[in-house]
């Protein structure tokens, strides 16, 4: 069975390296600040014992005050999983660092989130609309679209 790692355990491991970047950790989730997301992610990927080499999925959810980007990580080697979340505030130009250089599987998924939710990913090499055409006004999956 894939063991879903608890947020507190992983937070305890991460706290010494990245003080102040973890906002809360309850259940299987870990909520982090978006500025330190990239460093945390590369730590999670490369540390032996954690070894999260497989990015299962990236999603974004629109809670009206903020957008939440959710990363589901899995380790094929140790067969455990973790959920990492980050938030970005503001509806005009929300932005989050991109993890494409760590896990290439994020490529199309981040483009999809940009297309449908409007969240930009800093560092993505080819951030343009993927499902809708250039010239489409708005971001359909936002809660205030139609």
């Amino acid at each position: 069975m894939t063991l879903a790692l608890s947020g507190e355990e992983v937070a305890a491991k991460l706290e010494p390296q990245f003080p102040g970047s973890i906002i809360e950790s309850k259940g299987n989730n870990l909520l982090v600040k978006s500025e330190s997301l990239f460093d945390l992610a590369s730590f999670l990927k490369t540390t032996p014992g954690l070894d999260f080499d497989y990015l299962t999925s990236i999603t974004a959810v629109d809670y009206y005050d903020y957008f939440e980007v959710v990363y589901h990580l899995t380790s094929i080697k140790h067969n455990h999983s973790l959920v990492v979340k980050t938030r970005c505030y503001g509806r005009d130009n929300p932005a989050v660092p991109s993890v494409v250089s760590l896990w290439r599987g994020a490529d199309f998924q981040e483009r999809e989130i940009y297309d449908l939710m409007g969240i930009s990913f800093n560092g993505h090499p080819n951030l343009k609309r993927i499902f809708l055409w250039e010239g489409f006004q708005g971001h359909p999956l936002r809660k205030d679209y139609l």
Partner: protein
Amino acid sequence: MEVGRAGLYVYSDTELDRAEGAAIESLKAHCQQAIPDPDKWLEEELRRNILLTSVDFMLNWARRSSLWPVICFPACCAFELIATAASRFDISRFGMEIIRASPRQADLMITAGTLTWKMAPQVRRIYDQMAEPKWVIAMGACAISGGTFAQSYSVVPGYNLIVPVDVYVPGCPPRPEALLYGIKMLRDKISKKSITEG
């Protein structure tokens, strides 16, 4: 234009993308009304009280007996179309097993799947490239009116906004027998046509 290396993207032509996007937006703005179904001439049959001439008869027989469909397979109905063309519900007994990739050699477009605004210019282009006489069968609920997806932001509510449709086959997806019945209806329609109309 940069030739890419193995690695992350370095080439992607945004100029072309923007031009295509503008084409889609203009098509969307122009095609908000349904094109009327091409069967006005059916009402005029009452005025024609002579039997069809033998020329008409031969031409219509030739046209309806080997309709060649063109490839237009967006979505799920495509697999019922392929199942109709496979060996159990043989479409080859109607002379239609050649599903042509080139629209210039086809005379029937069986639209099997949901149409989105992004795909609409391409379907219109394929339809325009087919030579006269040509017919369209709208297969499935999505082709008739948008189906389950009719309220979506990117779905065209029915193919008859883009191309004129001759026969509508309902179903989601329609069974192969239903599609064969629709093809039979189209053949009956063709047999009533005369070369003096358009």
